[in-house]
């Protein structure tokens, strides 16, 4: 375990050093994050020019937006940079070298690099969550339950993302696969109450977006019960085990650069 932590530390510090070659990019990113957040809040406010989402005040809706931004930040920090790397590995056939190393290959391909460019999204997202929660109608919320729900949400995204990334072994050029995923995660911008019943079904059982933003927000705001966590835990477990199995299946048909 200590050995793995050491490896991860090396991986991340080298990749950060490489990314920091483009320091001026950070300002652009920070400006972009604030602009994106302003845009999202504007979009939310448009719904509240009418009756808004049934059962949700504007401030409660903001908490969901904040969670969405924070997840988007985490995705650009960890998931997006690794995906482009996986695609390069498959395209160039250098996945061989990863598979030959005495470290778990799934760990290496999914956590090899991190990028600092999602940090502003994470920070602004956290700010909006705090502001929204402070101004929402006061109920008995639980920060710790919400954090557990966020953890399950993160595992769910990772599982979904890794399944998509694994398909590159067959399809090779799937740089845009994260875009598909990101597009679907866009549904997490609004609480599930915003959607018609058919959408809610899909976002709970097919693309479990509900467990990423709505459930943590409900627990934080004291709107939901702890048993909502069970659904998230189940979805996370299924996706983690499933993505692992899928990766193994893919490796069986991976033939290397010459095949």
């Amino acid at each position, binding site marked *: 375990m200590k050995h793995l932590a050491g490896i991860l530390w090396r991986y991340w510090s080298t990749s950060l050093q490489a990314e920091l070659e*483009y320091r*001026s*990019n950070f300002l*652009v*990113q920070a*400006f*972009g994050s604030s*602009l*994106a957040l302003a*845009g999202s809040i*504007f*979009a939310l406010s*448009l*719904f509240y*020019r*009418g*009756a808004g*989402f049934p059962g949700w005040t504007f401030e409660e809706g903001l908490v969901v937006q904040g969670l969405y931004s924070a997840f988007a930040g985490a995705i650009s920090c960890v998931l997006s940079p690794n995906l482009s790397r996986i695609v390069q590995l498959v395209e160039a056939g250098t996945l061989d070298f990863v598979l030959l190393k005495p470290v778990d290959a799934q760990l290496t391909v999914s956590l090899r690099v991190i990028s600092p460019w999602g940090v502003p999204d994470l920070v602004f997202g956290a700010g909006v969550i705090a502001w929204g929660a402070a101004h929402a109608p006061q109920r008995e919320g639980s920060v710790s339950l919400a954090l557990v729900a966020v953890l399950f949400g993160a595992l769910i995204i990772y599982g979904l993302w890794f399944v998509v990334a694994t398909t590159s072994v067959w*399809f090779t*050029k*799937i*740089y*845009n*696969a994260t*875009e*598909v995923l*990101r*597009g*679907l995660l*866009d*549904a997490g911008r*609004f609480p599930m109450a*915003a*959607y*018609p019943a058919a*959408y809610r079904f899909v976002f709970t059982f097919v693309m479990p977006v509900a467990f990423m933003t709505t459930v943590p927000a409900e627990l934080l705001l004291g709107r939901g019960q702890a048993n909502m966590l069970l659904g998230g835990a189940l979805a996370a477990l299924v996706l983690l085990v499933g993505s692992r199995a899928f990766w193994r299946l893919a490796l069986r048909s991976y033939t290397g650069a010459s095949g």
Partner: protein
Amino acid sequence: MNAALRRMGGLLSVYYAYMTAYRAELILWALANSLPFILMGAWYQAAAGGDFGFTPVDVARYFLAVFVIRQLTVVWVIWEFDQDVQRGRLSQYLLQPVDPAWRYLAAHLSERVARLPFSGVIIALFFLVFPPARFVPHASDVLLAITFASLAFALRFVMQYTLALFALWTERASSLESLMFILYLVLSGAIAPLEVFPPELRELVMWTPFPYFIWVPAHLLIGGTDVDLVRATLVCLGWIAALVVVNRVVWRRGLKRHSSMGA
């Protein structure tokens, strides 16, 4: 003139072949455009409350039109250009007697044709799943929408290609596009039809290029009549002309500044 047309024809067929070589990628791109369908759900539900002056079915048609217009007007030249500068491919293109702009334009146009079947399948599926939204637009509306979608594509291409040229200085111009993309999403009508904007804001936005990217062609496609067509055309053409001038100036300066990676 004839030689130029022949060159463009050649480029088009080359890039069409290239696009169809990566069909799986094209399917993914068509699927990646799920945002209109997500917002369709949210606005469908909101319109059911009756506060907005349009019905849920109007909403479904509008966002389907948004999907179609986005398929027709996707532009990604800035990522391509970034890569070409970073990897030094631009230097090779510069040696050839065709301005690289035509190369990128050909890639975009041929991709549209290659993508069309997938978009068609998605539209058919949508009508199958949600019959109430089925509709056949009037021929005149289709014509208008195609005209304005072409203007939208031209405007967006020129705008993004102009931003892309800054890669000649910074090598990563695509971060500029991510800023522009936020404005594009919020102000173009992609996240909400412009009818729900506060009226003063809507009036202001109509002078910017953004609503012409999506809202105007989508609104016309579903039979909207409250668009000032003359003004829309003039604003579009004005922006295109201004950006073409800026583009050429930046291009000349950038080329003087450009030295291939490693030099």
